[in-house]
């Protein structure tokens, strides 16, 4: 197996632990659809997505905003699957 690629995948798997449950759940769905080891292209797009702060990430994932990075937008579309309307974050305590 390609060791650096495996390690990169595992690092990203851990980086998918987020501060907001909404993000955790959509990323979990993503991982369930992926092979054990990510290819370099997918890994590098995911890296860019995961570098976002959690509220910004949820804005993307909930379709309220897009980035100017087409590859990231494509990944977001995959994560969202059922495409929908713009929305507000759930507020609450």
């Amino acid at each position, binding site marked *: 197996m390609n060791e650096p690629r495996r*390690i990169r995948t*595992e*690092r990203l*798997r*851990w980086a998918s*632990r*987020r*501060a*907001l*449950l*909404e*993000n*955790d*759940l*959509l990323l*979990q769905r993503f991982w369930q659809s992926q092979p054990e080891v990510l290819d370099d292209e997918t890994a590098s797009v995911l890296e860019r997505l995961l570098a976002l*702060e*959690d*509220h910004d990430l949820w804005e993307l*994932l*909930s*379709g309220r905003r897009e980035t100017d990075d087409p590859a990231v937008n494509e990944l977001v579309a995959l994560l*969202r699957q*059922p495409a*929908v*309307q*713009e*929305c*507000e*974050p*759930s*507020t*609450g*305590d």
Partner: protein
Amino acid sequence: MKPKVTVRKFDAVIVGAGGAGLRAAIQLSESGFKTAVLTKVFPTRSHTVAAQGGVAASLGNSEEDHWHWHMYDTVKGSDWLGDQDAIEFMCRKANEVVIELEHYGMPFDRLDNGRIYQRPFGGHMSNFGEKPVRRSCAAADRTGHAMLHAMYQRNVKANTQFFVEWMALDLIRDQEGEVLGVTALEMETGELYAFHAKATIFATGGAGRIFHSSTNAFINTGDGLGMAARAGIPLEDMEFWQFHPTGVAGAGVLITEGVRGEGGILRNSQGERFMERYAPNAKDLASRDVVSRAMVTEINEGRGCGPNKDYVLLDITHLEPDVIMKRLPGIREIAIQFAGVDPIKAPIPVVPTCHYQMGGIPTNYHGQVVVPGKRTQNEIVPGFYAAGECACASVHGANRLGTNSLLDLLVFGKSAGETAVEELKKSPKAHKDLPADAFDRTLERLNRLNTQKDGANVHETRLAMQRTMQKHAGVFRFAHLLKEGVEKILEVQKAVNQTEIKDKSMVFNTARIEALELDNMIEAAVATMVSAEARKESRGAHVRDDCPDTPEHPNGRDDDNWLKHTLWFKEGNRLEYKSVNLRPLTVDTIPLKKRAY
């Protein structure tokens, strides 16, 4: 051959970089002490980020307010289980810590006159429960996030040393019971370290993931509770968990009360609007606990929906699509993403969902961990402190008021840091020697995990635990279910003690981390179940079917027998109790009363 453990020395080690950990670290680093902060994820990805409602402080910027009124609300909210010395301390300190946070650069919402803007929040009243008051300070809808950023920057300036993606594994305690640091795993290399310190502060957050339906992110596995319990420290008041009535079934994501406000209706498997039976007037708009209890009763009596009959439906299909799109757009997205239904066309599956842990590691209001000893019921564990959701000071008692948790992080994070500073100033220059068995607990656990054959699957075992907790110790509790629940959770515990991982690699081994987290979650789960089974009354968030509202016991609360804190010990799975402190620091006690709003 035993794996190598590299020892690193610090004055203080803090486990956790959420609100509580970061606030404690500022105190220590700015006093010149060499301070390490360990965190499983980057500090600004801690769960504190999820907090949006705000932080409570009686600044009185929009209308008259007073810490004494805040104290009254908190005691009442706690259903009198909160310790009144700690509550007075917290409410009096609120203004100071919020203003400090402002000086750290927190971008609070402001009034035209430049002062911090304050919003009203459930349970916060003026003049001892008279009418709602604006007490919550927020930074748009990113309060927790902004708070972490401001405090992280401050720590960087003060030279706090961060160890990001490091997982603390066990507490190190010597023969005398003194705490001398923690063992930890560096995820990137899989190597083991010991952080040898004169002060150890736990700020590891809550264990909300022990329930099947939880609003908490995956990171909230209660590691601090597990580490403390394994080291012989009891866990306090673990039967008290706050639930939200409407989380998306299976996913846990919150559906705000606003949906029922806009006309959403709860239905059972027969399509019946069941709230008409439980609350003929308020119906679906009845208070949170009434709605939650009705939902659970429907499910328990076989009128739940879905293949397992384990949820009810929140129906907004009768609303005009326009109204849904305009007034509830966020909810539509959440329902589509997490319930797989478009709420314009089909109802949303919902269940009462775990939200906040009131109990935790017992501390006094100085942030010092306290345990029953020979002389008093609150003897200080030398070198050990805890703050935030993992700790029980106890200010939230049987039920937390909204926005009081962020306040708890600031006040007790600071207090734990301050006390540690005072103790460090008095301590000898050299570190106390580590005991010979300092790493044994950790090495045994790792060795067991690495060599386990024919063991239990981590994911399945975690799910079994979560389902057991949800069914047997959920928002509305039944004597027979609790009893069964104790047996079942002890069965699950056996499986946890035999988990097996296929992947034995060292670097970023997520499977190993999840198995180690499960070791911690199960301690919180057993503590919760056993404590809940034993407490034969209803109080705050602990509501038992066999302890209903009667004239003798209003709301089912039994002060004669149960006005006391539970302490659960891992060893022997044993309970003890200690009295509630009804004596505030300077004011008169807030006398016992029925909790009614």
